[in-house]
Every structure is written in structure tokens, then in C-alpha cells.
């Protein structure tokens, strides 16, 4: 179906966002000798192997001990290092929430918590290895910056941007091959939303893998004569409220799209912003109070409605609710 659509962004290659992290980390290591890596027995999954090979003295295999990894990383900042920790998103957040809270966020430590296999699209491993609550947990922590880039290029750019960002940060990415549709040498400004497509009838705020689905949805809506604005919210926190309010002031309604629980995710952050400043209809595309399950990424996105078709439906609903 995508092939027949007049897409504003196209792709020639698919690649996983985690490879953007791995390649970004390697480049970060070359640029800054203070960058160190830690991994809890998932070097291959996190694509940290190239960094480990080039900088063995700056890489620490921690074993299956995520709590210790977070503490070690916090301690390493005290001598001026910039630690990047790597494991699956579930074990990066829920498993070590208290360690992150006390030793990293409350202590104001410059630790970058890097999390792969976030959301549903880990697929076949099922709910124990997926997580749909991580954005909520991390954004609730004071001092924590939360980033969820949309493709390989943006994940690489985000990784490099974090090296020069002082303070605790959570960087979320995924496993499946995904369209590379953003520029290779893009500027990544933490906290600055990226308006990807201009529109007038509805704003689609999307993050992570769902940004691509929003690009597809925009073309589908355009075929029906509906003008959608697509804004890439790669930084969930701090949220670019100015960009959100400016867009909704123009379009009058919005859709949020994310690979996360509806409770506590990007949509809730946008809802808070709107309700405090300019109440407007908002429809959520996300997972409704459910764990994931086994399946291919495509099957799961369809089953849980995290796709362009569902964004289109939500957009029409939001437009219909406009006063």
C-alpha cells in the first residue's frame, strides 16, 4: 500500500534503530575519550561490539546484573566519565527503577541509560522481554531527559547529542528493521520538536517507530483531502510545549502516536500541555492497558493498532470532535 502513496518522505533502506545507537556510540568514543560503555550480557543485541573492540579499556561487561550496572555507571561519572549503559528497555528501567532514581536521577549523575528492544516490536520473545511502560517511568523522574528517536539516522544523531548533554538521560530504541527516512547528517537538538510535514486540519504528534507510520498516515489523509501536520517528538522530556501549542493553535486538534501504554506516555504529556494552555480534542494511538505478546513486529503493530491506518482513524475522530 505504501508504494502507491505520495509520501513526503521515502526510504531506500531499512535498518534497526539499535544499530544507530551502536554506530553513534562508536563515533562518540572516537570524539570523546571520556565516553565509557557498560553492558549487561547483551553486547550483540545492543550493537556495542564495535565500541568494545575499539576501546576495550573503556568497555565494561557487567554480566547479568543490571542493578550493579546502574550503580557502577553512577560511580564512573564521579571521575569525569560519561557512561552509556546498555540492556533491553525492560531491564533498563523497570528492573532498576530505584537504582536509577537514587544513584542517577536524584544524585544528578551524567549517566546515559540506553535501552534496546523497547515497545512491542521485539516481537516473538513476548511480554517478558517487551516494555510499554518505560517512557512513563523515566519521564516521571525529576532531572531525567527522555529521548525516543524514529530511525537509524536519528538514533545515531541522538546518541552523539547525548555526549554533550550534561545530566541523566534515557535513550530508547528498538530491534526491528525500520525505514531510514530522515537525513544522515541531521542536527539533533534535545528538547526541540521537528515539524516534518506542514498541515492545517489535524496535528499528528508521533515518536519512535510510529513517526514513520505518521508519515504514511499523512499521505493517506491527503488522498482524502485532509491536511495533517506531522511533528516528530523525539524528546519526550523536556517536551517542546511551544511547538505543540503553536501547531494545535493552527489545526485545532491532535493525535498522539507511540509504541507505549496510553497511560503515562507521550500522549499524556501532550494532553497535560493542551489542558493547561489550549484545550483541544486529542486522540491517542497507543496500547490500551495491556501487556504485549509473541508475534512478528508487523503482526503486533496491527493487532494493537499501532499503525498508519489507526492513526488515520484517530485523526478523523479528532477532527470530528472539533467545536
Amino acid at each position: 500500500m505504501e508504494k502507491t502513496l505520495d509520501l513526503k518522505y521515502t526510504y531506500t533502506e531499512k535498518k534497526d534503530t539499535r544499530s544507530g545507537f551502536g554506530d553513534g556510540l562508536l563515533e562518540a568514543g572516537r570524539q570523546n575519550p571520556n565516553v565509557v560503555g557498560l553492558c549487561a550480557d547483551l553486547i550483540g543485541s545492543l550493537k556495542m561490539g564495535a565500541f568494545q573492540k575499539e576501546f576495550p579499556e573503556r568497555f565494561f561487561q557487567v554480566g547479568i546484573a543490571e542493578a550493579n550496572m546502574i550503580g557502577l555507571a553512577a560511580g564512573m561519572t564521579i571521575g569525569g566519565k560519561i557512561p552509556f549503559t546498555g540492556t533491553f528497555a525492560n531491564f533498563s528501567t523497570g528492573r532498576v527503577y530505584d537504582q536509577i532514581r537514587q544513584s542517577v536521577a536524584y544524585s544528578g549523575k551524567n549517566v546515559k541509560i540506553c535501552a534496546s528492544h523497547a515497545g512491542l516490536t521485539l516481537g516473538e520473545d513476548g511480554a517478558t522481554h517487551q516494555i510499554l511502560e518505560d517512557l512513563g517511568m523515566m519521564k516521571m523522574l525529576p532531572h531525567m531527559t527522555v529521548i525516543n528517536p524514529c530511525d537509524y539516522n536519528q538514533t545515531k544523531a541522538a546518541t552523539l547529542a547525548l555526549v554533550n548533554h550534561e545530566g541523566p538521560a534515557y535513550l530508547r530504541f528498538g530491534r526491528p528493521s525500520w525505514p531510514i527516512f530522515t537525513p544522515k547528517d541531521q542536527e539533533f537538538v534535545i528538547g526541540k520538536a521537528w515539524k516534518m510535514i506542514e498541515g492545517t486540519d489535524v496535528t499528528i504528534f508521533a515518536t519512535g517507530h510510529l513517526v514513520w507510520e505518521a508519515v504514511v498516515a499523512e499521505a493517506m489523509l491527503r488522498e482524502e483531502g485532509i491536511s495533517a501536520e506531522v511533528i516528530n517528538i523525539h524528546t519526550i522530556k523536556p517536551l517542546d510545549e511551544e511547538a505543540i501549542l503553536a501547531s494545535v493553535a493552527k489545526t485545532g486538534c491532535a493525535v498522539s502516536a507511540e509504541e507505549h501504554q496510553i497511560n503515562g506516555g507521550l500522549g499524556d504529556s501532550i494532553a497535560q500541555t493542551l489542558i493547561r494552555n489550549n484545550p483541544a480534542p486529542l486522540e491517542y494511538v497507543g496500547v490500551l492497558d495491556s501487556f504485549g505478546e509473541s508475534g512478528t513486529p508487523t503482526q503486533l503493530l496491527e493487532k494493537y493498532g499501532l499503525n498508519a491506518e489507526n492513526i488515520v482513524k484517530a485523526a478523523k475522530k479528532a477532527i470530528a470532535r472539533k467545536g
Partner: protein
Amino acid sequence: MENKSIEQLNDICSQVRRDCLRMVHGVQSGHPGAALGLTEYFVALFFKEMTHNNQFQMDGKGEDLFFLSNGHVSALWYAVLARSGYFGVEELGTFRKINTRLQGHPATEEGLPGIRIASGSLGQGLSVALGAAQVKKLNGDDKLVYAVMGDGEQQEGQVWEAAMYAAHYKIDNVIAAIDYNGQQIDGPTEKVMDLKNLKAKWEAFGWEVVEIQKGNDMEPVLAGLADAKSLTGKGKPVLVLLYTEMGYGVDFMVGTHKWHGIAPSNAELANALGQLKETLGDY
């Protein structure tokens, strides 16, 4: 490293105990028991053994570092930091009160000089100390990292993750201590959750273990620390098993978990202060 006599160090211990009791009494909240038990060890570190800079730098390059994992001993640490010049002694009177830098458990958010990591939720401190120790090696800094944990805290799994890691990476510039007083909030550790043979456990994890049988007697504490130091730099992390008595120095507080987390009344404070030599000025 300071040249203080045993007598001078003991005087400081008495004053620090008085500080702790006044702090906890002043706000009617805090944890006096373990603070009184660990006093000799803290005073030995901060007034004798450690090379440290009271013109505080968070990075701690070129100085020995100290990490407190069992953060409820905060009153003791604050008193020792103040008495060694990190901040004014009068500030101890703000302990646990609104708008204070002396939070109930140590925090960096309030910016108190000497504190490099928050602690209080147990089990996390050794991991942090190991990270700092590894970075000292990376930075070519030959100073040591000290950490203190509680014995009840050994029930936290993260401690053993850290223990395994330290031996695997041969982190031999760290001296971790366990305050082995045998008590925790709900009672004796052997009743709450028996630790069995801690020495054998740490040795099995690949650590050198030094025992200080009289942790409330300055001479054996200094001797034990000298032993521990002599074992650093030899490829293994070093643990001090420090036998102390909770509430040491005040007869009605000693040896019971009752004073883990309660404050003395006016009469109890007067009684306790009477038992502790008045050698230095109160805050």
C-alpha cells in the same frame, strides 16, 4: 592523612557522638544506634587514614574517596564532615529540618560538601564505589576508595552483584567495610534473615577479608585499616568486617536494635551526654 594521637582521636569520637545525639534529639528523628557504633571507624578514616580535601570537588581526583551505602548513618557522616572542615559545625543543627542541606539521608541535590551520591535505599553504595574506583585506575589516580555498608544491607542482592564484579575486574583500590553489629530494624540479623558466615561468603566471592574484632576501640581499628591498606594493589578487592556495638558509648543504647531509628527524650539526652566526655564545643 593527619598526625593525631589516639587520645585526640578518641576525643573527637566523643564529640562526634555528642553531635549525633543532639542532632537526632533536636529533630526527634533519625538513627542514632548505628551512628554511635560506627564512630571510631569514621573518625579513623576522616581524621587519620584518608587523604581528602575539605575544599570539596565532586570529581575527587587525587584524593581518597568515601561512599556511605547505609545512608541512615547520615548524622554520623555529617558530624564527621563538619568536624573535619567541610562546612560549619553550626549547620548540624539543621539536620532533617525543612530547607536543610542535611537531608534525612545523604543527598547531592542539596549540595552538601563531601557527599558524592545519594544513599538510603540500601544495597547501592558498593556498586557506586566500584565505578569510582575503576575510573581512578583509568585516570591513573593511585588514591583509594572506601565504602561502608550495613550488615542487614547484606540481604540486598545488588551487594552480591557488586562483590562478584569487583573480584572479576580485580578492583584492588577499594576498601569496603561492613558494620557488623548484628542488628537491624526488626531485630537481630540472625533472627530477621541470618547472614551465616559473612567472612566465608566474601572470601568465596574473591575478596581479601580483614576482621576488626574491636570496632569501637581506636587502636585495633587503626591497625585493621593498616592491614587493609597493605592488601590493596594486589589484584583483589578488600573487605573489612568491622565488629561494632550499636549504640556504643551510651549505656542504655548499646547492643540493642531498639535505638536503630528512634530519638532520645530530653532526660535521655542529658543522661547520654553526661556519659560522653565534654572535650570540644558543641555545635
